């Protein structure tokens, strides 16, 4: 009897000791703690500072989730383990089918009216894409391969889904860092852009009042996604997944006959995809994969890319103003909105405009380059994919 209880105790002791080797406490490393702190910081930014909570909360929690230490024993729980639930969710990122679904939602939610009313604002959206190629040149100078440089540079488009899409095709090994960097800087647009905008504009330029846009007919709004799709995809077929879904979503909205589909694409479907995308992108930042020198370089390049993109948009407005008649001048504060962070960048134009003149409302004007930026960054991604894949 005594012997039996001793062997039972031994058995329990062995199993408990074995169990302890599986716990996070037994497997934790400093890198995990750092990443968990980063995740917590993202959540704090989202809740306390209201920096893009829809993105940062899923990413923040994803970072924590992806860095919970565990013993590699084939339990199929980690993101990078085949057949785990997280791995199944991650396929949407790895194979690049979340980004087009997000673009479907963006299309269904976006009103291109401001752009159609004042089509010259499209050019600002094109100019701001210089952020991508400025960062591409710097990345090459830092020693990245052309495909890696392109994957990193697309951060300058300020478009998370596009960044994930392109990096999944061109530089899959850097995708986690690129995705987190893109979303982090998108959330930090209110911190990065105002300084650059102020630096590149004078008080007088910030006071420019733009004429109200003309009324856009429903016919024009319906025609825009069709013509936009034809023009952009005929020139850059490699941008088809993103541009096709963007314009498809917009046609659902503007056709006025598929309101139910547009509503679903812009709300429930988009929310589901954003949740899964944010969570799995966060999860992909496992310390062993993420805490590298390349990640540090990517974050530095991302910041450069955003600054260059903002500056390019603002400077391009100055150039446009040289050629525009006096009553049609554009306020350079909408130049920053050429990056495709919709509608954050446009809101910054509005806020900075109101700071200069409390009666100067720039939001609707800034929405023009902002949505043009979405098209521009998708086209840029398509071109890079075409050249390098």
């Amino acid at each position, binding site marked *: 009897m005594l012997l039996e209880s001793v062997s039972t105790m031994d058995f329990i002791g062995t199993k408990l000791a074995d169990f302890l080797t599986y716990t996070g406490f037994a497997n934790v490393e400093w890198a995990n703690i750092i990443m968990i702190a980063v995740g917590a910081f993202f959540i704090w930014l989202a809740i306390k500072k209201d920096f893009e909570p829809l993105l940062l909360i899923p990413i923040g929690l994803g970072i924590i989730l992806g860095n919970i230490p565990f013993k590699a024993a084939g339990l199929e729980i980690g993101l990078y383990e085949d057949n785990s639930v997280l791995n199944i969710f991650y396929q949407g990122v790895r194979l690049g089918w979340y980004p087009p679904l997000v673009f479907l939602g963006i299309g269904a939610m976006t009103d291109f009216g401001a752009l159609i009313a004042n089509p010259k604002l499209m050019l600002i959206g094109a100019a701001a*894409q210089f952020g991508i*190629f400025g960062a591409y040149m710097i990345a090459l100078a830092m020693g990245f391969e052309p495909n890696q440089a392109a994957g990193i540079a697309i951060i300058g488009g300020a478009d998370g889904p596009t960044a994930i899409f392109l990096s999944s095709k061109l530089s899959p090994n850097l995708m986690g860092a690129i995705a987190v960097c893109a979303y982090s800087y998108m959330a930090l647009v209110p911190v990065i852009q105002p300084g650059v905008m102020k630096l590149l504009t004078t008080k007088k330029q910030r006071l420019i009042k733009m004429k109200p846009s003309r009324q*856009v007919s429903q*016919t024009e709004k319906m025609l825009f996604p069709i*013509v936009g799709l034809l023009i952009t995809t005929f020139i850059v077929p490699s941008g088809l997944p993103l541009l096709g879904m963007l314009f498809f979503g917009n046609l659902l909205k503007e056709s006025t006959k598929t309101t139910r589909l547009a509503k679903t694409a812009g709300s429930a479907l988009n929310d589901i995809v954003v949740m899964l995308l944010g969570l799995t992108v966060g999860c992909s930042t496992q310390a062993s994969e993420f805490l590298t020198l390349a990640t540090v370089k990517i974050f530095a390049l991302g910041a450069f890319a955003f600054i260059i993109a903002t500056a390019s948009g603002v400077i391009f407005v100055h150039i446009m103003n040289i050629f525009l008649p006096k009553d049609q001048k554009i306020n350079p504060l909408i130049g920053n909105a050429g990056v495709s962070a919709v509608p954050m960048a446009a809101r910054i134009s509005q806020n900075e405009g109101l700071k200069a003149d409390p009666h100067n409302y720039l939001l609707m004007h800034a929405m023009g380059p902002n949505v043009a930026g979405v098209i*521009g960054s998708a086209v840029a991604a398509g*071109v*890079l994919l075409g050249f390098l894949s």
Partner: protein
Amino acid sequence: MKKLLSVISFLVASSAAFAQGAHDFKINEVYVATHSCCDSASCKQPGYVDEYGQAASWIEIENTSYSTHEIRNCFVTINPTVLDKDMPAPQREKLMSAIPAGDPRTSLSAKQRITFFADGHVNRGTLHLNFTLPVGEPFTVYLFDGNAVDLLDSVSVPALPVGSSYARISGDEWQVLDADKVTPNAPNIAYHNNKIQEFKEKDPHGIAMTLMCMGVVFSCLILLFVFFHIFGWAMNRAAKLARVRAIRAIHEKAEKVVEMAKQGTTETKGIEIETYAAVIGLALHEYFGGTHDLESGILTIQQTHTTWADKSHELRTTPQHHQAVELKK
């Protein structure tokens, strides 16, 4: 009618999709065994061997598309009489070797190849054809679709040197490959991503890439700008014309009313002429006076002094809230 059109469209789309899949199969490489003992167990010729360990002539077919397609039920032959367009399909089928169904190997994924042994022994399995390839003389290989009528691909093979194969290098360019370069079930040219290497060597600073990409981005958005600039102008013009037409119609009616008023004898269906005039006058007033269906969206609030909130008119200029709070307690 609408349903009929939908069905026809669907059928046309489906048939087009099928044809597109089959037309992606291309003959990729042909190898002729230069001896006649391939069907005997004593064959010792080195080279690509079948499941029985015997080297034989072979024909390699590639799925050139980026999607999976089935090659089963297609036909392969070297018999040129099948080119006779008047020959009925059942007769054609007898002259050709059919690729049997029921073998997963006939499902070719993107850029995948399949090699058939032309040894005349179809009883040896799916990958064996019912004919052999002639040694030392030119011939043509034909690949037909499942209907035995549509020619998918063909290649004229010259008389090949010993051990060599005839391979498609790119597009329609074919080349005789030496014995050491024969590539059964493999790409005919080594694949590596030249694009990245090319950019690395010729554009190390990214300037060319920047110029090209920015050019394309600007082209797209400039085209959109031009289209919607012109279209917007046309829409504005159409709206203005419509407005002018409406004003003209109103003017015409107003003139008629004035005429009616002057004559005083027109039929008014019991309504006084002044009422007509008043209604049209009101419409004109509303049209020109600023009440429209579409407004500019500009709100102008002029601040004027009123006494409704004037502190001097209140009962108590400095309300003592603390007293009210105390009363509540």
